[in-house]
């Protein structure tokens, strides 16, 4: 399959397509159709990744490698395993939906708007597929630019504050990661990720590198207390921006921990796991309470995202304590699988939730919860979708939202009963903030004239939400195929964690 250059196609097709769309500046409709064609084609080309994927091996697949910057020993080196491949599918799928959802509700600079998303898609695919740290870093930083533009140009009234906060937060973390990557390069002689993973490092080195990575990834996840950029960014971002931000960009942090922190610095991860576990649990409980009192729908969902992403980091770093407390490795993969599934599921559900808010915002032009009430009376189909996604967000079994939470709770109980206890509070808190939102917005008598005048979903909106609803339900009812794809990779990672890299 590698001679088809599938991964290159997934990176470059949307980027080139994005520049073509930029050229269609004068033809708004042409720009929309062109974007749809490009994003659909990208999605279709990503399907062979799933169908042609060899299950049962942790080796990188669809590998492409070419020299890139010879003086730095940096290669153009792409490949996917069972962890990154589903994330790429999530990216291509989400982008199609974002293009459809943005069809009419963006009126100024349509071509640029669409082009930003296409370029962003290519860059994000590249981040997930990079096996070379230099390439990874370039794409990782480049990814910020389209998102910066999306929020800064099409955002709300406080967009400047939000973009600067977003940019500075993520950039400061990234710069520290760059220092760590350069250090690793100087030691290893190349930017190849596999080389970094195999290279022995002292605990002291690992600790510094871990902390540098942590700065970059914790901001992206985001973990408490470096999370406050997210609610602001979401509130100001246009709907499409929020969807991509929540569905995919937050996953970069989790992915970074899996691909960099855990395998490159396993010993530091072990000695500092308490930090991640504590911050993850704070995210679940603290943020759960904060979400409860939000008055802005987007802020509420943003806080909900932070709490749910706490399960991702918890699932990853619970491994060491499982070994310590049970003396066995059973449960490590449970946590890792749970973390990865939680990332994918959160991508679908939070994306859907932000789209739902977008549907209402397009009609009423308010995100305030108090501006709504009784939406079900005028938008019954929409209400059905919103209730479904809200239940999925509360971790209802039968939806994708359940799997990750369940697996991580099961795994964390093996480490410590209190971890499971605190993590499981999401059952109550998650349901409380999500369904209270639904009660105030969706149910009840018609609250005001604006709600009375609402029109139910149009065909496009129905299509987008329907596609997400199907995905949420299919994954929830039958997650086995997804887990089958991931198994070899998470098992491999679980082994990497346990092997000390400190030279005796």
């Amino acid at each position, binding site marked *: 399959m590698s001679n088809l250059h599938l991964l290159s196609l997934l990176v470059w097709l949307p980027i080139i397509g994005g520049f073509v769309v930029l050229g269609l500046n004068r033809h708004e409709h042409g720009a929309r159709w062109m974007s749809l064609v490009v994003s659909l084609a990208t999605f279709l080309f990503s399907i062979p990744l799933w169908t042609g994927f060899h299950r049962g091996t942790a080796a990188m697949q669809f590998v492409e490698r070419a020299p890139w910057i010879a003086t730095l020993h940096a290669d153009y080196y792409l490949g996917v395993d069972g962890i990154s491949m589903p994330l790429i599918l999530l990216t291509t799928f989400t982008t199609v939906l974002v293009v459809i959802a943005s069809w009419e509700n963006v009126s100024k600079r349509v071509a640029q708007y669409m082009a930003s998303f296409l370029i962003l898609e290519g860059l994000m695919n590249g981040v997930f597929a990079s096996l070379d740290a230099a390439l990874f870093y370039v794409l990782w930083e480049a990814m910020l630019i389209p998102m910066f533009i999306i929020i800064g140009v099409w955002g709300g009234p406080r967009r400047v504050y939000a973009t600067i*906060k977003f940019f500075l*937060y993520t950039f400061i973390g990234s710069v520290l990661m760059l220092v760590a990557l350069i250090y690793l390069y100087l030691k290893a002689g190349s930017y190849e990720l596999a080389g970094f993973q195999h290279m022995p490092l002292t605990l002291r080195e690992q600790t510094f590198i871990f902390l540098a990575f942590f700065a970059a990834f914790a901001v992206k996840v985001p973990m408490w*207390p470096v999370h*406050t950029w997210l609610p602001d960014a979401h509130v100001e971002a246009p709907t499409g921006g929020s969807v991509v931000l929540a569905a995919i960009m937050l996953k970069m942090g989790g992915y970074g921990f899996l691909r960099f922190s855990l395998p490159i610095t396993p010993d530091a991860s072990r000695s500092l796991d308490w930090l991640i576990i504590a911050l993850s649990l704070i995210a679940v409980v*603290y943020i759960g*309470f*904060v*979400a*409860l*009192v*939000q008055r802005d729908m987007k802020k509420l969902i943003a806080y909900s995202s932070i709490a749910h992403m706490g399960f991702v980091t918890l699932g990853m770093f619970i491994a060491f304590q499982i070994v310590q*407390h049970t003396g066995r490795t*059973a*449960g*490590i*993969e*449970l946590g890792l*699988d*749970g973390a990865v599934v939680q990332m994918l599921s959160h991508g679908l559900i939070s994306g859907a939730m932000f789209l739902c808010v977008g549907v209402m915002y397009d009609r009423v032009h308010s995100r305030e919860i108090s501006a709504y009430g*009784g939406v*079900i*009376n005028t938008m019954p189909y929409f209400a059905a979708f919103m*209730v479904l996604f809200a*239940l999925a967000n*509360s971790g*209802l*079994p*039968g939806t994708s939202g*359940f*799997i990750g939470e*369940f697996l991580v*709770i*099961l795994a*964390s*109980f093996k480490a*410590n*009963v*209190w971890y*499971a*206890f605190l993590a*499981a509070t999401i*059952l*109550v808190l998650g*349901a*409380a903030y999500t*369904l*209270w939102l639904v*009660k105030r917005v*969706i*149910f*009840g*008598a*018609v609250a005001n004239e604006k709600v009375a005048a609402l029109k139910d979903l149009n065909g496009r909106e129905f299509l987008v939400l329907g596609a997400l609803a199907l995905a949420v339900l299919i994954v929830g009812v*039958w*997650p*086995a195929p*997804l*887990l*089958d794809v991931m*198994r070899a990779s998470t098992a491999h990672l679980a082994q990497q964690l346990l092997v000390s890299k400190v030279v005796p």
Partner: protein
Amino acid sequence: MEPIYLTIALAPLAAAVIAGLFGRVIGRAGAHSVTILGVGISCALSFYVLYRIVGEGMAPFNGTVYTWLVSDGLTLNVGFLIDRLTAMMMVVVTFVSLMVHIYTIGYMHDDDGYTRFFSYISLFTFSMLMLVMSNNFMQLFFGWEAVGVVSYLLIGFWYTRESAIFASLKAFLVNRIGDFGFVLGIAAVLRYTGSLDYATVFAHAQDLVAAQVHVSSTVSWSAITFACICLFVGAMGKSAQVPLHVWLPDSMEGPTPISALIHAATMVTAGIFMVARMSPLFELSDTALSVVLIIGATTAFFMGLLGIVANDIKRVIAYSTLSQLGYMTVALGASAYGAGIFHLMTHAFFKALLFLAAGSVIIAMHHEQDMRKMGGLRRYMPITYWTCLVGALALIGFPGTSGFFSKDALIDAVSQSPRFGSGYAYFCVVAGVFITALYTFRMFFMTFHGKERMDHHTQEHLHESPWVVTLPLILLAIPSALVGWFTVKPMLFGGYFDGAIHVLPANDVLARGGEEFHGSAAFVASAFGHLPVWLAAAGVATAWLFFLKKPALADSAERSFKWLYEILVNKYYFDWFNEHVIMRLARLIGSGLWHVGDQALIDGVAVNGSARTVGWLGSVMRYAQSGYLYHYAFAMILGLACFLMWIVWRT
């Protein structure tokens, strides 16, 4: 055999999907036809399965339908375990569900959400079947949550009513508190047995006994007790045991058919079923069973008392349901699982009957539910009257009715139990018999007898409900009256549940009762020598005296026991506490963390503070960049002087 089980589970799901997605296409008649067909198929096949198991002695079925996921070598399947316990539950669930489906045609006749309602109750039937048919904890939890969601949707069915959507949210959240414990219980089971399959877990139950849950470096709890109590917290939510009972009375905001199906006959008994299903685990922890016993007894007695002061006909029955669920829980706590399940079955019939009869009254009264505005309905609604009487007699345990057999056996079992708390429990369940009779016949007399207190308009239009309403009443009245006669022996003393429910010989209180069992008729006759029957009679007599013969007595009693009346009317202040303390505290914590933690400290000090610091530094540094040559020259001289001083200092 597997296709049959799949059909039983999936027929209602298919019907629910058709009615839910294509309700507008197939219309009202289409929606009720397809769902009744779906549930009817399930019901018929469930009876067939029960016949195969009981009549032909078919071995239990335990098989996988499909693999849900595999992770870390742990295989989580969707699968069925069909033994005698499950088969009985399937029959109860599908039969009551079928009755409720038929009844709904009449009850929801004028409602705009007709097709939606049928879709929901079929979906509920599917969820409940998945719960009882499961052979593993994961699917049990799926069914557990799914019935909770459908219950949420149905309590809030009339979504424009503020009280209904408040009640639905409350029900879901209180259940989630239970589920919080339930999930921890499941996690504990997996941690110490390495599996979530019933069969494997039960086989490794001793691992749980041997293990300790380390709560802190010095404190550790027995894993079996920890797991069982956590699982029971889940049951407390679903089966509305004190203090997680608060959602059930409010759930009466939903349409009456679902009060009968979900909040009386099936879903609320899921907790009872679950504990019975987990009997191989619970049997190993006396502590956990004592907790079960005490919580159940408290619910049985104190929730029954509330039924005496409620005036809403549905709420009286709801408190009765709470109390009866307490009875079942007491049976579980006394290791008399068979008696608990037996009472679950008889209760499903007579309580569904009572709710549907109340619904019939509510239709006649133009959706008036206040009993103070009823009275004398016997004349207008003979079928409702007689069937309701059957239900009421069964509820109070009138000798010979189904409720008599189950309640009497249950009380007997508690009296035999040596477990800690059984004395208290015995007092509660025996005193509860009097209370039950009192509130039941208070309701009965206030509704059907005495002066006609409704307004003139309602009175003119009073008439018996249509046949779709009365037929289910009659069909439920039959088992309510008779089912005890031929089920008491096998289910309690005949080893019907052998293989499904495990009781340690030392705990087997039912077996001791069985030694004295000489046939159903003798069982009835011997009851007259026991206290409960006379207590029930006294309760009926009191109700007659206070609420029919001399209502002034009730008023004066209310006045002289004002403080008690206040406590009861305020439902022991549980709701007040939850709303004014817990909910307010949660919001307070939330806004505190948000305003102080996120906004003041993180954003205010750390983020914007560093931005301000940088800005301030910049503004200070700006003065150095003045552009005047003599400033720079002066700085250079100063620097040079310092440098020289340093050099001199060093040497």
